[in-house]
């Protein structure tokens, strides 16, 4: 069959897929737990016969027995290519109209929860896709996935390695979400733009229970919707697994879905040729009508969708190094913690989307953007906006996104549109278009509107619909071009009225060079809302801006019954500021673990006390006192940590002060910390890191699951003399040994202290460490002794 034909059929509906392979094999005596894919080679007749039964039952498409044929799961004497080739061949030999390569989940969780990187996932899937295409599959079925990130890797691999149509179905649980928390609307928004030929749901539940999920998908999926339900839920009866939905019921429910617009149906666990035969019969009398998905403007993370067309959307601007010294330093030194705290603060302040910009001339922007995107989406569950002028960096960032991002930005320059629109199209991203072109920012609203119109037209030529565009009419500063400030608002009105696209605006520029910028910005923001602004890019940590946003949501009837507004007012009225004058002793506050008060006290002290004497005179003795009480059992870990958190927040005040005044405090020493390769339990390491920092050490944190070579390289490059390694599992203690051995072999003079749940003195010796640290306090003592001794030498 020609691939073209099936692509047509996928849009014409309904197309009938087959039922389960696994349960059919089990019935023929295959062991649960054994790899069923091996049977393609050892028992080809059994596999072919099952396919043939489905063809006879009326299935248009049979699914090759290749679900687990990926290199993470397939451990047998045959190569992946041999197993896939045999599987696809058997499916074709069954006489089916179409044979699908079946692609299941990798079997291991992906980053950030797991250890398989997005790039590795793409490579693993790519090999499976290539093998399937070479074997002559007519289409690719990616199924039973829970993670939209994994689905993205699989879809991209299929699209990049083959020309075959791609059907992708995820698995949803009773709560309407996948195991990683993805809801059906988010699945459609995240994956719909990646060029899939059909999107849908399979496994876990029966057709009746899946109905709400299916209805949501019909509403939001731009691609045809596929459903392969289980034959209900498994029950054990007399030691046998049986499914509780009969073939008749199954066919009835599935046929109803087809009437609602589902274009592809088939069965998953527990279904047999009998289910498919009845389904074929039932479909005979039904008429299919193409679904009419709602055109929406939406971006998403892996777990949450933001509908830009349904109200004001706040885009947080703070992850941008322009004019931010600390962020620049954090990016240069790869201190992700600082970036992540900025991301979390913005999300908690009400940002719904985060702009991510890492443009610094000395950095490899594509590489840094890819890493930052992954880290940020690992801790905040909101969509991202990839902000760069470099198309290579844009592609790296957009590719690494788990959900559907916004690209910031293109403009009216032909070369820029030609470079960026293909990226937006390939990854299904939304795009911001700036109303400037080769001759700069035009002064009048009419001219800016003309550029916007050109951008919309060019986008449509690239197949990007206007609901996927946002136009930025650009703000000029009131101090330099006062007459033109309101032109921006007129341009917004024109764009909204004439083009019907969404608008976005970075408001802060308007006040550049003037005092009390917040008031100007807030006023301009309110005016821009009035002109039709949909998505302001602003600093969500500014209370004033967020108040304007909250108030506008009431006036625009977005905040129903002003519920959120009223709630926030009540909260702020009962709020008592914690930075009232504090008279208590700082040491006492640290011992009691009073974070806010410590920070406020240090702020007050810094007027007449040098930073260094606060650290040495208060922090260290207070921490020592708490540490001693912890050692003696008078305090337990959370109490020690409360004091540590208090010092941490006080330290932040001191750093800010030093940045401002240029006052320098020498660190006591530099310590490298890492959780070794293969291990991802890093809470212990993070506690030790915080304690060391509180005692004035500069900690270079390499994170978790750190490859041996990376530790060696960092120790060499940064001239590290003391390093701490952690491992939690007996299986990863070996990595600890390898890491230390590699550093010694490289001839580097570095001492190691090690810790972790399974470690003890014996193990420490076994791995070749110099010190064993039982807990965080002991790590500090080791560092103190080490650097004191070094200072004396």
């Amino acid at each position, binding site marked *: 069959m020609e691939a073209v034909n099936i692509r047509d059929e996928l849009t014409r509906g309904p197309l009938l897929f087959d039922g389960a392979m696994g349960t059919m094999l089990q019935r023929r005596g295959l*062991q*649960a*737990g*054994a790899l069923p894919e091996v049977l393609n080679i050892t028992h080809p007749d059994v596999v072919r016969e099952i396919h043939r039964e489905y063809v006879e039952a009326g299935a248009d498409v049979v699914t090759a027995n290749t679900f687990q044929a990926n290199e993470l799961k397939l451990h047998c004497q045959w190569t992946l290519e041999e197993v896939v080739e045999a599987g696809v061949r058997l499916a074709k030999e069954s006489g089916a109209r179409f044979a699908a390569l079946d692609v299941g*989940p990798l*079997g*291991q*969780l992906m980053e*950030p*929860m*797991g*250890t398989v990187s997005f790039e590795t996932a793409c490579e693993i899937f790519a090999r499976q896709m290539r093998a399937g295409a070479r074997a002559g599959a007519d289409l690719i079925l990616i199924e*039973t996935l*829970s993670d939209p990130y994994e689905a993205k890797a699989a879809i991209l691999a299929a699209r990049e390695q083959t020309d075959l149509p791609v059907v992708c179905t995820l698995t949803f649980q009773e*709560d309407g979400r996948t*195991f*990683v*928390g993805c809801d059906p609307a988010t699945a459609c928004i995240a994956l719909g733009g990646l060029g899939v030929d059909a999107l849908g749901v399979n*496994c*876990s539940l029966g057709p009746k229970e899946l109905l709400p999920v299916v209805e949501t998908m019909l509403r939001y999926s731009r691609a045809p919707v596929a459903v392969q339900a289980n034959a209900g839920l498994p029950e*054990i009866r007399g*030691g046998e697994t049986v499914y509780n939905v009969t073939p008749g019921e199954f066919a009835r429910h599935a046929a109803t879905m087809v009437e609602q617009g589902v274009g592809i149906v088939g069965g998953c666990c527990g279904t047999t040729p009998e289910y498919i035969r009845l389904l074929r019969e039932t479909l005979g009398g039904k008429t299919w009508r193409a679904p009419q998905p709602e055109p929406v403007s939406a971006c998403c993370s892996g777990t949450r969708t933001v509908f830009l067309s349904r109200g004001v959307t706040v885009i947080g601007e703070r992850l941008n190094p322009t004019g931010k010294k600390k962020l620049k330093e954090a990016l240069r030194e790869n201190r992700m913690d600082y970036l*992540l*705290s900025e991301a*979390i603060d913005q999300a908690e302040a009400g940002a719904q989307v985060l702009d991510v910009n890492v443009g610094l001339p000395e950095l490899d922007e594509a590489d840094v953007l890819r890493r930052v995107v992954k880290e940020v989406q*690992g*801790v*905040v*569950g909101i969509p991202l906006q990839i902000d760069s002028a470099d198309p290579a960096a844009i592609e790296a960032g957009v590719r690494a996104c788990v959900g559907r991002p916004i690209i910031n930005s293109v403009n009216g320059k032909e070369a820029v549109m030609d470079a960026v629109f293909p990226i937006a199209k390939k990854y299904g991203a939304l795009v911001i278009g700036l109303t400037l072109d080769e001759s700069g920012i035009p002064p009048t609203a009419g001219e800016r509107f003309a550029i916007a119109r050109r951008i919309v037209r060019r986008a449509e030529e690239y197949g990007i619909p206007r609901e996927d565009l946002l136009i930025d009419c650009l703000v000029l500063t009131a101090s330099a071009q006062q007459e033109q400030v309101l032109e921006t608002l007129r341009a917004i009105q024109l764009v909204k009225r004439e083009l019907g696209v969404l608008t976005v605006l970075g408001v802060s520029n308007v006040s550049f060079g003037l005092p009390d910028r917040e008031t100007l910005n807030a006023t301009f923001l309110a005016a821009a809302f009035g002109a039709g602004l949909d998505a302001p890019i602003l600093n969500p940590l500014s209370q004033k801006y967020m108040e304007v946003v909250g108030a506008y949501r009431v006036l625009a009837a977005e905040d129903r019954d002003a519920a959120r507004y009223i709630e926030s007012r009540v909260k702020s009225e009962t709020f008592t500021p914690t930075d009232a004058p504090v008279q208590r002793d700082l040491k006492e506050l640290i011992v*009691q*673990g009073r974070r806010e008060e410590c920070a406020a006290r240090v702020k007050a002290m810094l007027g007449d006390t040098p930073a260094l004497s606060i650290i040495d005179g208060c922090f260290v003795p207070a921490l020592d006192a708490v540490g001693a009480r912890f050692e003696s*059992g*008078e*305090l*337990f*870990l*959370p*109490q020690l*940590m*409360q004091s*540590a*958190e208090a010092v941490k927040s006080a330290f932040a005040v001191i750093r800010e002060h030093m940045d401002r005044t240029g006052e320098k405090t020498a660190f006591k020493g530099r310590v490298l910390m890492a959780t070794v390769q*293969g*291990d*991802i*339990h890093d*809470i212990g390491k*993070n*506690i030790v890191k*915080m304690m060391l920092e509180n005692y004035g050490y500069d900690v270079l944190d390499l994170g978790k699951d750190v490859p041996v070579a990376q530790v060696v390289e960092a120790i060499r490059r940064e001239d590290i003399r003391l390093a701490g390694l952690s491992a939690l*599992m*007996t*299986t*990863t203690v070996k*990595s600890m040994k390898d890491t230390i051995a590699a550093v010694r072999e490289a001839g580097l003079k570095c001492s190691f202290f090690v810790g972790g*749940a*399974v*470690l*003890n003195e*014996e193990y420490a010796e076994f791995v070749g460490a110099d010190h064993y640290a039982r807990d965080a306090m002991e790590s500090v003592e080791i560092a103190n002794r080490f650097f004191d001794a070094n200072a004396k030498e």
Partner: protein
Amino acid sequence: MDIDKGEVLRYLGHRGQQLTEELEQMVDEMLELCARLAKPRWTHRRMSLEAAGSPVVLEGGALRLEGADIAAHLAGAGEAAVMAVTLGVEVEGRIRRLELADMVRSLVLDAAATALTETACDACQEEIARAAGEDGLVTGARFSPGYGDLPLTVQPDILRVLDTQRKIGLTCTASLILLPRKSVTAVIGLFPRDKQPVKQRGRRSCDSCALRKTCTFRRDGGSCEYTR
């Protein structure tokens, strides 16, 4: 599903120290958060037990359990139940996020999740016991990979025979770490009523525990929840 606050505090190393009201409140808040975010799910399967000995062979070779300790643990059992429990990824995501913003809360939430995992294991085991009871069998204690000399390398096999990725979203890494992290797999012997070993009627002892040399509970003169 309830989370035992006493257990949570014990995991955190609490040995009767005076708690401030704020700390109490924060612990309560984290227990609530844990209960809201965690999605306890489990799956289990009864498997026939071939002739006693090491390795233990289940269901005609579908699963093999190496080591003398599991063989002893299952001695006299007519069948075994293999189980897997997980809390899902959401609570872990929050633990990770809190690590950056508030380490104390993160630590407490982590401990709460550990306690809840145990509660979920108990619930799963009860379900197994109920079904086994109908057939006149009683359950022994849970025995997990990593206890005694039952190697962790059996972890992928257990996940495969239970089809845990499909059923409860549980996987393991190349270095045999269960993911989501707040997860447990275990094997339970199903005994004819008169054949249950006496020592399994209570909790198990520290003797077969791989962590006995480094256990902080033991260091402080106590023991963990399995032996109380």
